[in-house]
């Protein structure tokens, strides 16, 4: 498969992922700690249990992507 298609485009986007992620290490650590806490706690992990932390991470990530695109 040559030329640009869905897979080549998504792979290109994925290549930027680590660089953008590195700029949000703090938010990522907070989110990770929130989820890791549920594995040891008494409550089972449910949907959106760490939604707030994830929103912070996602905002940081999309901002980093916007800065990169400029």
């Amino acid at each position, binding site marked *: 498969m040559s030329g640009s298609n869905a897979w080549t485009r998504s792979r290109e986007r994925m290549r930027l992922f680590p660089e953008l992620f590195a700029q949000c290490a703090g938010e990522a650590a907070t989110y990770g700690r929130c989820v890791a806490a549920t594995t040891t706690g008494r409550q089972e*992990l449910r949907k959106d249990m760490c939604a707030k932390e994830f929103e912070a991470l996602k905002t940081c*990530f999309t901002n980093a992507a916007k800065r990169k695109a400029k």
Partner: protein
Amino acid sequence: MSSGVCLRVLRAAGSPPAASSGSWSRVRLPADPRHAPRRGLSASGRGGTMNVFNREMKKKQKEWAASLRDGDQFDYLRDEVGGRVADRVYDIVRTFPLALDIGGGKSHIAGHLSKKQSRRSEIPTHRLLADEEFLPFKENTFDLVVSSLSLHWINDLPGALRQIQQVLKPDGVFIGAMVGGETLYELRCSLQLAETEREGGFSPHVSPYTAVTDLGNLLGRAGFSMLTVDVDDVQVNYPGIIEVMTDLQGMGESNCAWNRKSLLHRDTILAAEAIYKEMYGNEDGSIPATFEILYMIGWKPHESQAKPAKRGSANVSFGDLSKISQPTNTNTS
């Protein structure tokens, strides 16, 4: 991981080396699903046959991986495990005139065997494209069967092991290495937690593996004797979860189980990366991925092999154990 249908015959240049292993002839067997009637049907198991993996998909994945221009960068795991299997072959003080390498790919095992003989002579090789579950050989053909990191995509593992046992000559040996047990548990757990938190449920992304405890039973049922099973952990450090998945894809090890979900949401990937780094990350920011390699050695039964002693043939008693520590009465001057 060879591409397409190839029937290449490589002959050794010059005389075979006069080392302890003697001369070799090898047939290599990459995976290829034949269109057997029972396999082409639905994903549910029929009769006694398990149907967990889509073999057609696995063949396509391996061909894609083999066609990559810079595919050599993904060979590190196979080279390492191939070297350890070659070590085990060398541990056996015997000459093997005819050997079979199942799932040989780029012949990682043979590469290590040639180097140790410190000669540039190539082991004479024939390559065959065939299905691991339908070995196209007569019984009692091979002195040695090796397999490295390809048995974990076989649907009917008991059947495949039985066929390996059949194509071996009596007193032949099978040395295999397969990923099993807790391989990639960090990846599996990170994805599971991320999917649960982001999407409310999770589906399996890492394919199922054989546990160490089951391996002994499998080999025994297949008719092997004098079994040896041991476990080795290979831990590889990666910068991030994307690199883990890219490398697995490049190795031709993408998931091909029927029950896999083909989609991974970008939110889930982001969440999984954060969880992976937090829960399993190393101090320098890299993340480990564990490959638990199970090594197995099994022999085809033969009269020359040691058998358990007959009942009642003991000529020492357990009661004599207490006398061992006491010094015997020898002449002391």
